[in-house]
């Protein structure tokens, strides 16, 4: 069973009385296992929010279908086990923080003492205990976001959708939110996280999907996506040497400013042949390191590539 499963999920919005059509989401087939933190990344307008809205029945797909916890998305009862923090969420300004949690808690099917206890716990977790009895119209942006997170967790959901949860939150608050998410994961909850903040996503997600213009460009674990397959950095004891003679069509060598070598090879055999050649000439090797890019580098190059291809 998957926590989330989609089948060619697609959404076309028509605006200006049908004159302009937007392919907000095209043919997305994704499977997300329970207990994962999945990061959905993409530039503005990529379709991240649309994806979540389709899964929650807020908008309807033009084609395709989706399952949440093995139930079709059209079954509203499955949402008993779902929590959601929308982007730009709004609460009635006349409600106090505590009342917001009470309302959405009761709507999610919990009440009475259980709800009271849960509200206390969550206000504490998001550091809003002292603000629980203040009307939300007096909340700052970051406080609204914290309240939104508490609201998303009020029913102890199996599946949590968070659209930019750290938007407007200060660095310490962001760390606290990350800790809350990691704690949820340790309770084997599934989290789908929409974000632009790639360094943050890198810290906590297990898998990521990269969307651009409604298309899923890549999907995989953070490790898989950031590994540069056949690029190594070789550090040598001696730095002055003519490395040119080791290059051939299988092995591209460039010298870095610190004297180390950047090596692009076709496969591991070529790498070992290079090592053999270096060792034969008695060159001492200190370290061989598989090169990695940051998620951000990978993201930017992937998006640029896809923009180029679409031209």
């Amino acid at each position, binding site marked *: 069973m998957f926590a989330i499963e989609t089948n060619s999920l697609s959404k076309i919005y028509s605006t200006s009385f049908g004159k302009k059509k937007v392919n907000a989401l095209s043919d997305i087939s994704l499977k997300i296992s329970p207990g994962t933190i999945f990061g959905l990344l993409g530039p503005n307008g990529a379709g991240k929010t649309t994806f979540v809205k389709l899964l929650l029945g807020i908008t309807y797909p033009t084609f395709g279908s989706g399952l949440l916890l093995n139930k079709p998305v059209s079954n509203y009862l499955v949402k008993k086990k779902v929590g959601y923090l929308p982007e730009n969420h*709004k609460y009635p300004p006349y409600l106090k923080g505590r009342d917001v949690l009470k309302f959405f808690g009761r709507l999610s099917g919990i009440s009475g003492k259980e709800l009271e206890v849960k509200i206390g716990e969550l206000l504490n977790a998001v550091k809003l205990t002292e603000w629980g009895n203040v009307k939300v119209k007096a909340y700052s942006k970051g406080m609204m976001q914290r309240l939104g997170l508490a609201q998303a967790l009020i029913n102890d959901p199996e599946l949590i959708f968070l659209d930019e949860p750290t938007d407007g939150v200060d660095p310490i608050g962001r760390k606290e939110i990350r800790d809350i998410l990691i704690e949820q994961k340790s309770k084997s909850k599934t989290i789908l996280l929409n974000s632009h903040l790639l360094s943050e996503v890198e810290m906590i997600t297990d898998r990521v999907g990269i969307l651009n213009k409604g298309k899923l460009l890549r999907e995989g674990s953070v490790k898989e996506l950031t590994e540069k397959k056949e690029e190594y950095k070789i550090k040598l004891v001696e730095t002055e040497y003519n490395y040119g003679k080791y290059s051939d069509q299988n092995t591209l060598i460039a010298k870095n400013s610190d004297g180390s070598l950047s090596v692009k090879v076709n496969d591991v055999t070529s790498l070992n042949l290079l090592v053999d050649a270096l060792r034969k000439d008695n060159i001492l090797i200190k370290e061989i390191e598989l090169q990695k890019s940051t998620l951000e580098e990978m993201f930017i190059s992937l998006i640029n590539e896809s923009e180029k291809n679409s031209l």
Partner: protein
Amino acid sequence: MIKNVWLITLFTLREAMARKVFLFFAGISLIALLGLILVFSVVGIDTFVDIANQSGSKGVIREVVNSIQLIIINPLAGLCLLLAIFSSASFVPSMMEKGNIDLLLSKPISRDQLLLGKYFGGILVVFLNILFLVIGIWIIVSLKFAYWNYSFLYVSITITFAFAVLYSIIVLLGVATRGSILGMMIAYFIFILLSPLLYAYFVEFKSVIENDVLKAFLDGLYYIVPKTSELTGIITINLAAGKGVTEYQPVLTSLIFLILAIGFSIYLFRKKDF
């Protein structure tokens, strides 16, 4: 699930309280009731009561009590409806605002339940307001005349029903346009102008009109448009006088209108993308 609808109903009530308009009306009601008590304690109505009692018939005193009650409730009920239309017009559009609707729809509640909750919530607010006023007037007048005209309590139901019909238009246009203006304008138009005019046509001027096409058109319009004029007028008066519902046609046609409008609202709301 009734529980979900009830929950939304309660929170709509709360939203209404936060809007202050209903509190404003409750304040006016309270002032009216206090004024009534004051008038009764100053003006020597006792002599009036005596005359009524001397004539010996219960029928006379009942009529006196009934007319006094109606004279007081009539302008206040009208004001209540005007204010209710104004303040309930934004219930549905504000629910459909971005950021709010997303959250509501992510909860285990169906769209039908959500909309019905909003509908019943609006009705409940008006009912409570009217009930407060009707019961207040009823108790004060009845105590004074020592005659308990129970039929007067029906007024709270007819006025609420008239609002329920108007509110169904507001909900329908709220869902369709995502705004409050159009629904509010049409509800006012029907309540203040169209329904009274069509009623006047139906009972007074029908025979005057010679053109058959125009007649058929006006007849059709009369049957289609909610009959708030009769509901708050003749039907309320007869009910309060203990005569029961003397004519069912205005009630039934208005009820059919209400059901169709709400049914269509639900249909539109189910299909909407947010």
